[in-house]
């Protein structure tokens, strides 16, 4: 895998509009900045290799290397990635309640991780109106302030860089699959630094099919309603096919077909629905509001979940086979679409091919069966 510098990152990713604003490159150096959901490079940097390029989930990602590092074997390309156990879950009685998106599993796990000292800081995503606000928190009670999903792409990982800068060395991170890919690369010492130390202690991935571009989404919504009245948003699991915008006095349903054009272009080539590189991954529970689907992937994840159950922070139940089947179907579907989109672009003329990130080749090689 070729690790390049910021100029290549700008050429391959930013200029091709493939950036999903995960925030991995923001705050590493003085050059990458994010404003209103868009990442920009403010001045050129002439280094030929940079962490920005190494961490970015949209440049070429060496899945085999990640899989070897975390699971000790080559990447298989199965729908849900490597895992130990899949279950249903929700926050237990010991967890304070909050405006959870679904079952509050994510918030519960992060709260406990802070409480036990497993992590010394958590990187979460708060919001200010529609705009997601990355936050680096250290107090348990701050976790619920960040509960609920923001369907707009958030440069959350900038706070990982901030946490490292501030000297935290056991950071917990919650993020989408692309963010978990970036975090996995942050944990790998890809640039072979002698003084490297993995600063991340625990990761919770969110299921994700796509995220929205803040700027176009805001323009879209402000044509339809007063932005200041929005309380929260939800995408109920299929077959609903709507985005529900909850305002102070009413719920507004927007068909997903209207929303799709506002999805980030980078999401169309994303093969990961269930955050395959996280310790645990959490999503909605189809047909059972107030519950989550929980994928436990790593040993650390397993220990954490068991502890959470023991401490009354989490309630775990069986996930019905039909739900699992739907989940696999959904995850496979995302992989298939990503592959099609990549191949479509690769089959295009030369200039189109050049617009594809280096990741293309790698995926063709090993990602999909």
């Amino acid at each position, binding site marked *: 895998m070729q690790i390049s510098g910021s100029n290549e990152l700008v050429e391959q990713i930013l200029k091709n509009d493939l950036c999903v604003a995960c925030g991995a490159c923001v705050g590493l*150096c*003085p050059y990458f900045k*994010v*404003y209103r959901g868009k990442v920009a490079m403010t001045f050129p940097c002439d280094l030929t290799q940079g962490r920005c390029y190494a961490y970015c989930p949209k440049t070429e990602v060496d899945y085999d290397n990640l899989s070897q590092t975390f699971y000790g074997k080559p990447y298989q390309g199965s729908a849900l990635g490597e895992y130990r156990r899949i279950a249903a879950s929700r926050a237990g009685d010991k967890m304070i309640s909050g405006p959870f998106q679904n079952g509050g599993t994510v918030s519960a796990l992060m709260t406990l991780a802070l409480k036990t000292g497993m992590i010394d800081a958590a990187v979460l995503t708060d919001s200010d109106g529609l705009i997601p606000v990355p936050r680096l928190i250290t107090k348990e009670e701050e976790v619920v302030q960040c509960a609920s999903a923001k369907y707009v792409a958030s440069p959350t990982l900038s706070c990982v860089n901030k946490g490292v800068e501030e000297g935290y060395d056991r950071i917990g991170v919650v993020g989408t699959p692309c963010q978990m890919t970036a975090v996995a690369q942050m944990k790998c010492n890809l*640039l072979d630094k002698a003084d490297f130390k993995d600063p991340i202690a625990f990761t919770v991935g969110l299921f994700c099919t796509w995220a929205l571009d803040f700027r176009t989404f805001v323009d879209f919504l402000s044509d339809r309603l007063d932005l200041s009245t929005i309380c929260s948003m939800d995408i109920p699991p299929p077959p609903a096919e709507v985005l529900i915008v909850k305002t102070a006095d009413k719920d507004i349903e927007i068909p997903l077909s209207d929303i799709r054009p506002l999805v980030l272009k980078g999401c169309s080539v994303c093969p990961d629905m269930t955050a395959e590189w996280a310790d645990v991954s959490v999503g909605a529970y189809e047909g059972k509001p107030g519950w989550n689907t929980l994928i436990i992937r790593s040993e650390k994840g397993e220990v954490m979940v068991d502890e959470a159950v023991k401490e009354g922070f989490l309630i775990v139940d069986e996930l019905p086979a039909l739900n699992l089947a739907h989940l696999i179907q959904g995850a496979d579907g995302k992989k298939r679409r990503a592959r099609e989109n990549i191949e479509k672009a690769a089959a295009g003329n030369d200039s189109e091919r050049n617009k594809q990130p280096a990741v293309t080749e790698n995926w063709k090689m090993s990602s999909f069966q």
Partner: protein
Amino acid sequence: MTRIADDHKGTSHLLMGNEAIARGALEAGVSVAAGYPGTPSSEIISTLAKVPKEHNLYVEWSTNEKVAMEVAAAASFAGLRSMCVLKQNGVNVAADFLLHLSGSGTRGGIIIVPCDDPGALSSINEGESRHFARLLEIPLLEPGNFQEAKDMTKWAFELSEEIRNLVMVRSVTRLSHASGNVIFGELPKEAPRAFFKHDGFILDPMEGIVVSVPVSYRHGQQHEKLKKSIEIFETSPFNIYTGPDNPELLIITASVCDLYTREAVHILGLQDRVGVLKLGTTWPLPPKLMEKVMGRTDKILIIEEVIPFLEENVKILASELAPKIGIKTFFGKRDGSLPMAGELNPDLIISVLVKIFSMRYESMPSSYAEKAETYALKAAPARDLTFCPGCPHRASFWSIHNVLKMDNQEGFVCGDIGCYSLATLPTGFMSLKTMHSMGSGTGVASGFGKLDQFGMEQPILSVCGDSTFFHSVMPALVNAVHHKSNITVVVLDNSGTAMTGFQPHPGLKVDARGNEAPNIDIQAVCEAIGAKVKTSDPFDFDGTQKALFDLLEDKEGVKVLILKQICALSPEKKEKKMFEMSVNIEECLGQSCGCNRLCTRIFRCPGLVWDKDNQTARIDEAICTGCGVCANICPSGAIKKEEVA
């Protein structure tokens, strides 16, 4: 050094060309002098402004050149001697009024002193004011040395009174900003009184109304005046021929080119073969004198800078005189002997003469030249212009650049003339994308702002200085507000006309003479015009960037951001450091990923240097002004500032 308004009659003083012009005006008994700062003209007004108050003199830095000309004209109408001083661009600004003034005629002696800048040594064009004299149909005088700068200025007032019209005395950078010895004349004793007569016979030039109508009558009169000037010019002591009676080559030249020419002729030892006609009165040309001198030879070389103004006028006369003086061979700009662009110097003239006379000349031994060139190439890296250490503009453009990049909609900045013009270069992060005349940034932005109708969505900014704001931005701002142009105007308010040497302007509480003056508040003006205004200190990056983001997000109408911080060269700041700066080399990330020399590679304040041996940044304490700004850009906080007690 020399006190310009002391009598000292008959003594010699080393004066800058501009000081000589000022002295000439004082010897002529000038009462009113007005101007707008512009290199290389500024020291004329500055020098007069410093003349002690016992001399009853009124001096002002006007808001712009047109107003300056109008202020000077009023004094002339009231019978006083007056002058207007400006750089070449300024004549364009004053042109509308000038055309009317030359038509109406004047009373008290009045001169316009444009200082041109051949080679654009401190301008963004090398425009010419000489052709304005022809356009306005007024006499043009061009001093050729320092003594003449004084003497001709004095004489120009007399000429103006003789013909009752404006006279142009044109200088250039290499005269205005050079110094030489000048023998002083007498200063007048009596103090004139101002009175404007306006109720005499309507067409009476001295007692009627001062207007340019009826046009054909007044225009006819103006030509009578020109004829009179020509007669006077025929015997003017400022037109001097030196050389043999029948030279092989006649050089006709004027202004500082005369000094270059003499140098070249001297170096080549051509004194016996070349005659030089140095003209002081270059328009209209005196035909009898020209006939006599051109009759001496067949070959004529005309030496002047920039446009072939003198050359064309000489050629017109030569063709009219051809039956008497014969047909001449001309060398000059039109045949390519001399360049059309850029300034001249003795070397360029040497090379022309060497060609005409088929001579050989070596200015330095070739082995020496080769060696010197090799060493210079190896060891004298170019020195690009930069904002000064501690300059608020560097900070302002830092924020502007960062905000536009982060905003990520390909926004751009329109600018104009001032120190901040340097923002076309890396020192201002190449932020300026258009740069034209004074105030044009905002006018151009106003136009860009209306292109949304054609699908243009880029954010549009303009920048202007505080002095420029009053000079010519206000009408553009009114235009933008009235037409609902969605633009953001950034006023870089450094409390003075910094580029030209810190002259006061209407935004300050002091006038040219150092008297207290009511200041006009830029923020209040902008608000009254109907713009939304924010003010920030450019040294406060966070506050400035936040303010700019807020304004950019507001998509309605005109926004103004005033960035206030005094120029690093201002007398208040110059002598004292606010902070003692240092770099903690342990913390400096240098070239590694995470910084890659942001401070020296990008921010580039000359006060910070890159220490190659240690691979860290370092403060050059001989240059750093201690503004403290760079401490805020270092990503690892390695640049430390400590307040100076």
